[in-house]
């Protein structure tokens, strides 16, 4: 088996302009570094999380030119001239994005580790399809794993945000998504 000798290899360093959340940044990094590493370590944008680093969990999802991609498998050096959006760029002025608001109000995050990736994937979906069916939401999220929530509140949160974004202020998530299912024979209480 070959010994991994990291120190012996000379690092090829580059200085690049990356456009992140609408702002140009000049960043220096090694060419073998992923966009995830550069966002977190060079740019201190630690909202984007690293999980598996192998393409399997989706928590590192960012948008490049509006499309969800995995920052753990994208080399930062390949991102010059493309528009990168991370969770830090989601707020609209001083207001939370409707997805962030719906996730917070509904408790669609538990440990929160999957949340930035899911928000980015959902943002891209709603920009393309303002009224997705449940199946379309589930397919869009197929590459984002959540180990805590069981997905239910995430899906309801996306429906709610989609409604808000369509201007439908009367939409309410189903009661059981907010309070949990009532026990058999029991009336749900507001308490």
């Amino acid at each position, binding site marked *: *088996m*070959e010994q*991994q000798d*990291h120190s012996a*290899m*000379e*690092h*090829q360093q580059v200085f690049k302009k990356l456009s992140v959340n609408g702002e140009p940044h000049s960043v220096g990094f*090694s*060419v*073998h*570094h*992923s966009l995830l590493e550069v966002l977190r370590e060079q740019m201190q944008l630690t909202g984007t999380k690293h999980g598996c*680093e*192998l*393409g399997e969990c*989706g928590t590192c*999802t960012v948008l490049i030119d509006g*499309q*969800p*991609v*995995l920052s753990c*498998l*994208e*080399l930062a*050096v*390949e991102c010059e001239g493309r528009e990168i959006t991370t969770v830090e760029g989601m707020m609209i002025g001083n207001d939370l994005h409707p997805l962030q608001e719906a996730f917070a109000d509904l408790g669609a995050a538990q440990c929160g580790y999957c949340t930035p990736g899911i928000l980015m*994937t959902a943002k891209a979906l709603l920009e393309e399809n303002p009224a997705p069916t449940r199946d379309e939401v589930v*397919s*869009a999220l*197929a*590459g984002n794993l959540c180990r805590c929530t069981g997905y239910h509140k995430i899906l309801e949160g996306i429906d709610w945000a989609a409604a808000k974004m369509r201007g439908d202020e009367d939409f309410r998530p189903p009661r059981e998504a907010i309070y949990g299912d009532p026990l058999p024979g029991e009336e749900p209480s507001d308490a």
Partner: protein
Amino acid sequence: MRPFKVIRPTNEKEAMEQVSKGNASYLAAGTDLLNRIKEHVASPDSVVDLKSLPGMNTIEVTDQGIWIGALVRLSAVSSHTDVLSRFPAVCETIIHAATPQIRNMATVGGNLCQKPRCWYLRHEGYSCVKNGGTGCWARDGENEFHGIFDNQICSATQPSNLAPVLVAHEAVIEIASKDGVRELTADQFFIGPSSDPLREVSLEEGEFVRRVMLPESTRAGSWAYEEAREKQSFDWAQASVTLLLDRGGRKGDHRVVLGAVSPAPLRRSDIEKKIDGSDDEIAEASGIAGAGATPLSENGYKIPMLKGLIGKAIRSARSRKEG
């Protein structure tokens, strides 16, 4: 990740020269290559970025067929209106591959040239015939997801979802080589371990895939793609069946190609012959699914799985035709 240099060639000749120098690999989107570098099973000193080459990122529709550049992303193929209307089976196999994010990144060329997913091959602690050593760990080891056909030398299966449907359509693979451009049919392009255990595709040193052509003459009258996998959200196929009926308007010109059960996509002309429109075609065709199989200790389940998938594919292609 182990450090490497990134080389951006400006023309094909330079790309071939650079990749032949020392320990270098071609890079497309990197979803497979970077994965292997992180897992310490690939360790190139430099990567030659094919994305810097012009002209490989387009889809061109002609009377002969549709040319798809090697750098076109999987999601761009599956959402292309002409590919969807003329070669819907290709789009269907793509939406079963990987995750939405990976489909937005992964290129067609990279999908065809990705390395197999055998867990021994993808673990730095194991050496076998496929990485220049001897023997096969899966034979007497953990082989639940391995192949059941042509598995004597190596039972790792061809991982590409596109591979079987390209064989079924007799797609042309256009290859850039030192002596100019050469073409292979998909069936010649994907190879098993008896040709060369170190390769899964017949690319010689320095060569790369430029584009792929889906021939108009193999457009299907009807079609189906069925796959089984452990997880519904996303997963590698455990077995798949690609079925094209009455290709090019020729009655009885069918193709059945099995995926994820052998080192190269497996065309089954014996099964094709049983698909004759008779009342018992499903029983006849699925009945011989396991002919020639040599299952290992943990993957015998793939035979009944194939039987089910073949039946499902025939039913679905027949109803698509009528519907």
